[in-house]
Structure formats: C-alpha cells, structure tokens
C-alpha cells in the first residue's frame, strides 16, 4: 500500500505530489559500528503514524532538509509497528548530515517505495539469509517478520559476515537470534581477530562450507556488490535455481519512483521494479552492470 495522505502543506495540483516529504522525528539513535547508526523515528503527523504501512524490503527517501535526500531501506519489521527504523553508514553528504542529528531532530521522509520481499512466495519455504555488513538491514526487517510469524516458514538459516567483529551490525539482534532455538545463525568475519572466537572467512566461502540445502529453499542475499557477485555462483553450485535466489540491490536512487533514470539494470529500475529481484530477473545484466 502506498501512503498518499499529504498531511502537511496544501495539496499539490490535482493529484498528490509524490515528491513532497513527510516530516518525521528521530526518537532514538543507536551506534551500530564505527560509522553506522540506526535511527528510530516516527511521523510528526498523528494520523499518518497510525495509517502508515509498508512491506519488508521496501525503502524510502530520507532527507535532511537543506542538505538533500538519500534512499535507505526500512530496517524495522512491519510486525513491530510502534516506530520505524533505518540504518545508514556515514559515507556522503546526506549521511554525514544524518549522523550529526540527535533525538528530536526532524527529517523528511518519502515512501515507502519499491516492491518489498515476496512474502506469499516465501511462505512455507526454508529461508536462507545471506548478508554482509550493513546489508543485514533489509534482511533484518524480513527476519523479524518471519520470527513474528514463525509458523508460516520452515527452517530459517542466517549467514552473516562483516569485515571485523566491530563491523557486525545489529549485534543485539544477532545475540537474540543466537539464543532462538528455532533459527540457525552463523556469523563470520573476514580476517582473524583476537576478540573473535567464531568463524572466519568471506561470506560466500562460509556459505559454501555451510552448504544449506536448496530443497524447498529460497536464498535471500544482501550485502556489498562484490559479496553479491561472489554469492550467486556458490548458490548455483548448491543447486539453487535463479528463481530461488533473491537479492535486494542498492544503487544511487534520486527520485525513488522510476523516473530520474540512474538506478536501472537493463530495463528494470531498482527503485520501481526492485529493490528486491530474483536472480532470474537480472542475470542478463548483472555481470556487467552490477
């Protein structure tokens, strides 16, 4: 569902103006890793707060007014709706400005955009989550959603890696999931580290070692492009078909609604037709455009 209530300002022309942001207020800021923060926020408008809905895997355009806009996925789960969350790494103009904000600050929000994860398709399947670094953010929304509706899914496997123990995001979630007997989680870091007693190795390599079964399974992959590139061949080796491999992609997205032109992979726009794709949809272009 798309939220079309334009609570602030006048209605624009005849139809609603999708480019006008809603105002949201930051309620909490969590330092995930050096350079990554999670923001808890809520809409300023009461009505919108109640009516807003989204799907796991959808994203939004967040703005610091006067600085600019940037897209991030909604990292919280629709099944837990007292507030919304997004996580971002400090990498550019907008994210730098976001990271300077504290509790109570107002940000602009447009969305939700994109397709989200195909929940109907995923029901009754074994879910294999493969995540790297901040790529856990969109997966996390779906993982919590699956946990909150645990009876709708079969096995849940999570393979998650980061460069170092310090770079693991959502450690509080990882701990919770670790204790949850109904899911199987494997965390890994890229290189040996004194403070780390768990697995060491790149995500695709660990995935190959863990070798989850492809039978009645769907792999959901998100991470840095280089990780995604190396993960697909491993999944194919494990017997996953292109339709059983799902990824959520990140591109520079300015408008969020398939118009500004920059986020395409072939004829598909990551913002409009994605960000969630099956490997079958993008395999023609993935080797050279992603």
């Amino acid at each position: 569902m798309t939220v079309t209530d334009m609570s602030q300002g006048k209605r624009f022309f005849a139809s609603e103006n999708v480019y006008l942001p809603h105002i949201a207020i930051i309620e909490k800021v969590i330092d995930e890793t050096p350079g990554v923060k999670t923001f808890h926020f809520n809409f300023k408008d009461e009505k919108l707060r109640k009516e807003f809905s989204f799907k796991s895997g959808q994203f939004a355009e967040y703005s610091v007014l006067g600085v600019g806009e940037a897209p991030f996925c909604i990292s919280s789960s629709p099944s837990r709706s007292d507030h919304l969350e997004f996580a971002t790494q400090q990498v550019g103009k907008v994210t730098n400005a976001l990271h300077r904000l504290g509790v109570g600050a107002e940000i602009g929000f447009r969305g939700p955009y994109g397709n989200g994860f195909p929940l109907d398709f995923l029901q009754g399947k074994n879910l294999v989550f493969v995540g790297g670094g901040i790529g856990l953010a969109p997966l996390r929304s779906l993982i919590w959603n699956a946990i909150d509706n645990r009876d709708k899914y079969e096995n849940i496997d999570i393979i998650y890696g980061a460069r170092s123990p310090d770079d693991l995001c959502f450690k509080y979630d990882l701990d919770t999931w670790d204790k949850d007997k109904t899911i199987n989680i494997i965390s890994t870091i890229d290189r040996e580290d004194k403070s780390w007693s768990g697995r060491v190795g790149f995500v695709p390599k660990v995935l190959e070692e863990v070798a989850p079964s492809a039978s009645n399974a769907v792999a959901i992959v998100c991470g840095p492009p280089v990780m995604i590139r190396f993960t697909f061949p491993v999944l194919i080796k494990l017997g996953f078909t292109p339709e059983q491999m799902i990824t959520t992609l990140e591109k520079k997205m300015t408008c969020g609604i398939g118009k500004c032109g920059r986020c395409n992979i072939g004829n598909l726009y990551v913002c409009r037709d994605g960000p969630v794709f099956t490997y079958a949809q993008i395999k023609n272009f993935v080797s050279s455009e992603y």
Partner: protein
Amino acid sequence: MSTSKKISKKDIGKILSQWSQEFTVLVPSKEGNVSKMARWDGKDTRFMDSHRNTVHPVKANFFPPMEEMFSFQKNKEGYHIEPAPPDEHKLLIFAIRPCDANALAILDMAFKDGYEDPYYLSRRKDTVLIGLGCTNPYDSCFCTSMGGSPSDSTNVDIMLTDIGNEFLIEEISEAGKELVAKTEDLQEAKKADEAKAKKVKETSYDKVTRKIDTRDIDKKLLACFENKDYWEKVSAKCISCGICTFLCPTCYCFDINDDSFKKRGARFRSWDSCAFPVYTRMPMENPRGEKWRRVRQKVCHKFEFFPMNFGSIACVGCGRCIRLCPVNWDITQTIESVPEIT
C-alpha cells in the same frame, strides 16, 4: 475528413493575438542567439522566417533545466513545507515541429507511468500544440526512420503546412477542432490548396535523407550488451558532456538537490545526464564509471530499455544530438553499426 482551412502568412499575428486571449502563446524565439519556445511578444511574427527547429527542445517548457519543487522554513514548531505554486498557464505552442510533438508523447508516458509527476503533468495539462510541417529539414534529421515524418501530425492538435504565401490548417484533435471553430480570420481552403499541401508533404519527406534501419534493434542491442570492444570503439570520441542528453527532446533524467538561503531553503530539480560519471556514482563504487558503459546506457535506454517498458523507441530523429555534439558523435552511425545477431 472535414474541409480544411487556411491562413495567409501575413495574418499569423491576428490569430496569435486571438489565441493569446485564452492561452499563453509560445513561439520560436531567440535569447542570446539560442532558439527556444518562449512567450510571444504580441507583435513580431518574423520568427517564422528563420525557424527550422529550436535548439532547446520543447520539453524545456514542461520539464525545465531547473525548477523549484518546494520550499521549507524552520520555525518553533519545526519544518514547514510549502509546495511550489502550481503553474496555471494554459500553453499554446505555435509552430512546434512534428518530432518535438512526438517527443512530448514519449515524455508523457514516462512521467505518467506509475507515480505521476505533478510538475511535468500540470504544465502539460490542456496544452494545445500547433504543429508546423517542415519544408527544410536539417541534414541531421532522421525522423522518417523513427516512425515520424516532416508532416507527421499524430501528436499535435492542429497541423499547419506551408503552401507558399499561406498555411493550410488541418484540425487533428478534438481540441484542435474546437480551437479552429472559434478562430476568426481563417479562410476556407480550396481543393488546389490541399493538393499543394499534399505535394509539399511528399517533397519534404524526400528531403530527409538520413536513414537508419531500426528493425530488431532491441534484440541486436541485447545481444551485444556485453560486447565491450564494440562499445569502447563506439564511445571512443565521446567527451561525456551533457549536450546530447540535455537537448534531446525525449531525455528526461533529472537530479534533485537542496539549497539553503538566508531565510528559507528549497528543493530543486534539474536536468541530469547519463553521460556524467557522477550520475550513478555511489560512495563505494560506480556501476557506470567507465565511458563505454555510459554510452551504452544512453543508446540502450533509447533503443532497447524504453521500448521494453513502453513499446516505443525513445528517439524521434530530431537530430539535435548530432547537430550540437562538439565531436560529431552520431547516434545514427552507432545504430547502423550495432553488430548483427550471429
């Protein structure tokens, strides 16, 4: 077909004056020797003498190089957002060339698809297009290869054809019919005028000598998508400037940026181009950092991706990109050189 009308060239000012009562009339104009469609000054009709086509495509009147989307101010209660005031002008564009009118139809598809774009569509709404057939196409024009022609009237409301001292007037759309009905000073066209117009159209068609073959072009492009050697060769002389995309009547890519002034801030939309490396640059990597990938995107978007999504090639053959390119990068040569499927 109903009987057509005609008007003497010297009376053009009269009908433009009438139309100015109801519409904001735009005519081919020059600013700093750069031609574009701009508001008619109410007097001069000499613009007709030198009008072949404008440097600025007509898209610039609906999707300008930059526009304010909304402004914002911070007060005690927080941010207050004020959308840009709607553009309520009813536009009448006089002497639009068939290619540019066809290009608007392509932009309409893009801006209407999915979420509607309020800025473009509000300006576009109720626009009347008065087409003028070309009698002197440029050597860079190739509209006849792109499904158009110098006299194509598909996407205009009224079509004018130059028959010497007069223009033959054909009503194309309902809006066109209505406008003609209430326009004074028009004369009934004679059989001979219509015959003359037919002849003019035929002659003009033959004057477009640049031809390309776009059969199966989408399939051919898909097949050579990974052919780096080909794309490197094709893109070698491109200097990655934005001329061909900015002044293309069908290119619609844009960027959004904020600006802060003393008392308020505003968000602006401006033209952007797939020719620029920054267009797709992300903090960690750039999927189209190399020139050949950008040129490939430009060509494939027009001839492969847009047709896949909308069923129409996103090129009307106006030839601006060829005329204005500082290094004479020629899209028709590129299309002709796309390897056959083996």
